[in-house]
């Protein structure tokens, strides 16, 4: 165990959802790691050697376009696992995996996880359920990015992060939000000022604090709630929203 890491593998809700007998064969292969803010786990095309089960860390999968522009295409927190389903065959990272909130995670070598999965039907089923949720989340995000206003998408994004964080104050700059949403920084500034005027968030330098979660949910598009319902249906207990904690 690395120095300073004091966490339990089962802080990850997927791992926690396994019965003790199904978790036992995984445990010897799991390694606790600290992930720092803005740390890049994989760049586009990098060989994916480990799958990560985040605890309080949050990791974004970001697509880097040819002109250098970026847009977030996936997000992973304590409800999920990254580096597994999107690299099953090529074992190459589709985009950049970047830590957007520092914290801990449990990681396991891709081959070890595959071996245990092949021998454990319950783990295989859990990962299949998560796979369908992840694909559904991606499909919904594609639709959302195509047709919904920046303001609604911004609310969806803040809610997604709030669900995965253990606090109300999120370390977010306008620049970072603009890179995640694939829009210009000024557009984010205008939107976040509107949200602050409405009392939904409080901004300070380098961070955004959620002050009215229900209001954010009302201002977000249908996409946030739809994905949350799919999580709750396929992975009951692993996706608790910030409101219910």
């Amino acid at each position, binding site marked *: 165990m690395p120095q300073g890491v004091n966490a339990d593998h089962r802080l990850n809700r997927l791992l926690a959802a396994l019965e003790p007998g199904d978790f036992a064969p995984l445990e010897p292969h799991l390694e606790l790691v600290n992930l720092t803010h803005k740390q890049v786990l994989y760049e586009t095309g990098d060989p994916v050697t480990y799958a990560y089960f985040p605890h309080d860390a949050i990791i974004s999968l970001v697509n880097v376009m040819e002109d250098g522009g970026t847009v977030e295409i996936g997000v992973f927190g304590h409800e999920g696992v990254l580096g597994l389903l999107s690299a099953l065959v090529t074992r190459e990272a589709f985009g950049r995996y970047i830590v957007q909130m520092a914290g801990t995670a449990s990681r396991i070598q891709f081959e070890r996880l595959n071996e245990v999965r092949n021998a454990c039907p319950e783990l295989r089923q859990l990962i299949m359920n998560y796979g369908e949720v992840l694909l559904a989340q991606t499909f919904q995000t594609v639709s959302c990015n195509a047709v919904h*206003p*920046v*303001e609604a998408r911004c609310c969806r994004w803040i809610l997604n992060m709030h669900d995965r964080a253990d606090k109300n104050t999120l370390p977010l700059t*306008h*620049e970072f939000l603009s890179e995640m949403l694939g*829009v*210009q*920084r*000024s*557009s984010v*500034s*205008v939107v976040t*000022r509107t949200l602050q005027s409405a009392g939904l968030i409080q901004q300070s330098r380098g961070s955004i604090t959620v002050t009215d979660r229900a209001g954010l949910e009302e201002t977000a598009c249908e996409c946030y709630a739809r994905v949350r319902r799919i999580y709750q249906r396929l992975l009951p207990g692993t996706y608790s929203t910030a409101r219910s904690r």
Partner: protein
Amino acid sequence: MARYYFDVQDGTNLLRDDEGAEFDSLGAAIRGAARSATEIGTDRLARGDLNDVVIKVRDEHDRRVVTVTALMKIEQNVLSS
């Protein structure tokens, strides 16, 4: 590379940009400001908000170097009953 600041005038409010961002050229900054004006304007015009979106671009010496405006206008030509 040079740093440019995008102040957004929307209606009577001016949202001042104190952080700025790096651009390869003034042309790149203008394209960024134009994209931003259209992003902000698209959602607003659809909601019937007719305040023009004006982005005033300043350089590192606090000089206004360019102003990009998305004009918001809905003109009804036939009266509907």
